[in-house]
């Protein structure tokens, strides 16, 4: 795999992960538990959509085949998508959405902080921008994990259930393949294996404070690095892509 291929695939992976997460989170718009939370999650979603746009725009530029970020978002099929499986999982109730978001915010802050030192200037620039935003996102999701975990018996039960449904998708975030190997040598990619203990430490501390139990021996799901997804991604794409596919080249 040459450097250009690897850089394209890396940007696509990061862009897709942001895009599918944002698309999922946007389902809450107008349905949040109360007005301030609705606004909070919508704002967070917007930041993540913005990051997706920057990353896919860069991927399109590296590919240099005349495709735009919109072509990449709206005209690829599920097997051509490389978003992490955790992002496509259904929102469930608010506790599950928040639990998933806390896992991702914690990972993203570590990841983009490291990516800000990348030798690729564009990725480093996008990362520097994202750190500021993710800091706010993480403060939000972590504080809600604490409130749910230490709230009522019901809020605690729901948080634990949300955790049980999402936990199996967390290990995949740290999976590396040939793309990472090629880019690590060039000082472009982030060494995910170095992030894992840091992530685990922070998450374990948070879950301790929220009285959530981490079960042992959970089978960890993988597949997205090869474009293999859970059944949920097809439905997300069907909804997200319906308009541009029905009306090709339509303009606002």
């Amino acid at each position: 795999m040459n450097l250009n291929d690897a850089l394209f695939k890396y940007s696509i992976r990061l862009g897709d992960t942001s895009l599918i997460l944002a698309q999922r989170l946007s389902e809450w718009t107008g349905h949040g538990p109360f007005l301030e939370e609705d606004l909070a999650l919508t704002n967070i979603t917007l930041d993540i959509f913005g990051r997706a746009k920057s990353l896919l725009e860069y991927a399109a530029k590296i590919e240099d085949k005349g495709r735009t970020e919109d072509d990449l978002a709206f005209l690829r099929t599920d097997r051509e998508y490389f978003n992490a499986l955790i992002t496509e999982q259904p929102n469930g109730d608010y506790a599950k959405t928040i639990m998933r978001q806390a896992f991702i915010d914690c990972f993203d802050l570590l990841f983009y902080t490291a990516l800000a030192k990348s030798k690729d200037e564009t990725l480093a620039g996008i990362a520097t921008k994202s750190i500021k935003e993710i800091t706010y996102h993480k403060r939000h999701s972590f504080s809600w994990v604490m409130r749910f975990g230490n709230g009522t018996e019901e809020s605690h039960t729901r948080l634990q259930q949300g955790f049980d449904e999402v936990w199996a998708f967390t290990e995949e975030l740290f999976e590396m393949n040939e793309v990472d190997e090629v880019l690590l040598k060039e000082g472009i990619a982030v060494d995910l294996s170095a992030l894992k203990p840091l992530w685990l430490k922070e998450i374990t501390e948070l879950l301790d404070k929220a009285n959530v139990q981490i079960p042992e021996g959970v089978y960890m799901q993988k597949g997205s690095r090869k474009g293999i997804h859970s059944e949920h991604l097809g439905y997300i794409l069907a909804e997200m892509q319906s308009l541009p596919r029905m009306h090709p080249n339509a303009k606002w």
Partner: protein
Amino acid sequence: MDSARILNLLSEIPDPEIPVISIVELGVSRKVESEGKTVSVIITPTYSGCPAMKQMEDDVRKKLLENGFDTVNISMNYSPAWTTDWLSEDAKLKLQKYGIAPPEEKTSDKSFLTGKIKSVTCPRCKSKNTLMVSQFGSTACKAFYQCKDCLEPFDYFKCI
């Protein structure tokens, strides 16, 4: 046309969401260069997903085309990342008069780094007895506060 004059033109463009300050005061326009009738402008987004960026781009293009240029190249630059530290004291005063509490500190402040936000001053009655209702307000760049003395709810321009 020299850069100073181009910047003067851009200073006439209001922020689409906070019309009391210009995009130059906001710190969105980073660099301008021109040669003959061609002008290049580098802009940087306030927030990654700020929906006003497209509007700002269109406004910059329109303004420059109306003022003698026939080719306008606008490019987006992410580094250095936009920060509220770039808001001038004058711009902060304008925000306050408009009813938005301006950022209270520099991003290099210790309280910012530890996440302990300083007390925010109510833009209407200037009381420091205020309460954060939500870290997220009407737009990405603002948090939502309420004054406990005059009871007015207001937006606070977050420090990033």
